[in-house]
């Protein structure tokens, strides 16, 4: 709206600007699932839709029900696809804050044993354990991982009750991966189950159910 038309006597234009805002529909807290899922890149910005104003007035209690749907390439919690990880320690070396610690998997999973069948000594399998409290979410570990085992997931709820839970063990990372990449998880896990019966990654689920 062009405010030049309004004669500027002392304070008339600011009043006009504020008056126009009074008549416009107010913007509310954007609802969680305001993004339609079909387009890869949802234009929350004004470009595609004239007003991004929610049609439903969102009250505080609703916020807790909705988890905001971040963009596909959001850099939130880090998930680990343990089956691909070979323990090459690339992520351990690159991490700026030294949050990653390599932890040995004591009951060595069957796919690793089968890999070293002919050799005499089995190399111990190492998986990263991330101290998410110190993590910068910078994404260097995900980039440096050559076996695409580490993934960025749009998860953001890393808050825990005790400080120890901030150390995400490779089982927690595997769960996060499963939470945010269900299809790949199902496909790979089904195929793994066909070949071998049980592995240390899945003990946790058995216990919790």
């Amino acid at each position, binding site marked *: 709206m062009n405010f030049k038309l309004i004669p500027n006597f002392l304070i008339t234009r600011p009043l006009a600007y504020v008056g126009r805002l009074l008549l416009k529909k107010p913007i509310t807290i954007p609802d969680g699932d305001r993004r339609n899922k079909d387009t890869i890149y949802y234009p929350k910005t004004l470009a595609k839709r004239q007003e991004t104003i929610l049609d439903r007035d969102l009250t505080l209690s609703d916020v807790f029900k909705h988890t905001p749907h971040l963009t596909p390439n959001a850099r939130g919690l880090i998930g680990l696809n343990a089956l691909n990880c070979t323990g090459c320690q690339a992520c351990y070396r690159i991490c700026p804050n030294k949050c990653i610690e390599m*932890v040995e998997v004591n009951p060595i999973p069957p796919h690793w044993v089968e890999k070293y069948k002919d050799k005499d000594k089995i190399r111990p399998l190492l998986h990263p*354990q991330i*101290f998410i409290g110190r993590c910068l979410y910078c994404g260097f570990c995900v980039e440096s991982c050559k076996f695409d085992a580490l993934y960025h997931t749009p998860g953001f709820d890393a808050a825990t009750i005790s400080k120890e839970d901030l*150390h995400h063990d490779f089982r927690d990372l595997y769960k996060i991966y499963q939470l945010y990449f269900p299809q790949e998880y199902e496909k790979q896990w089904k195929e793994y189950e066909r070949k071998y019966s049980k592995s240390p990654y899945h003990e946790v689920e058995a216990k919790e159910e």
Partner: protein
Amino acid sequence: MSLESHLQSLKEKYSSKLILLEKTEKNRLKLQVTQENLLEVMQCLKYEMGFSSLESIAGLDWETYFEVVYHIDRWDGDPTLLQVHVRLDDRENPMVPSLTSIWASANWHERELWDLYGISVKDHPNLKRLLLPDEWDEFKHKHISELYPMRKEYKLPEKPYSFKPHPK
């Protein structure tokens, strides 16, 4: 006053005092001066050459000696950036003349230099700690290396936290 004319006028005026003067890039100059005639060269730079503002003072600790790097630049006419190096061989109490009388902006930079490197600044208006807390001396009164954090002897702890294995 284009860049070349700067070069020429600096050369004839201070041929004896300058250790090194070269043109590094399109509008960059590099200058090496000894500690004694630093003040004099700076005054000439400010008033004759028109280098109007001092940007930053960086301390450098080369284990055996200290070095202080000044960045001075001018905006009017032909804008150039001058990088002045001063080498301080005395390791116990390194000392640099204060430039606050020439450029007022040097005030904070010199306080920070003294605060983090321990390079004392001669006749600086109020040489107090800028970034570190005033009680810093009581914390680390043990050894000089503990006092000035930016020196090479001051080591950062290797792993600042202890890794507790996951309780599972």
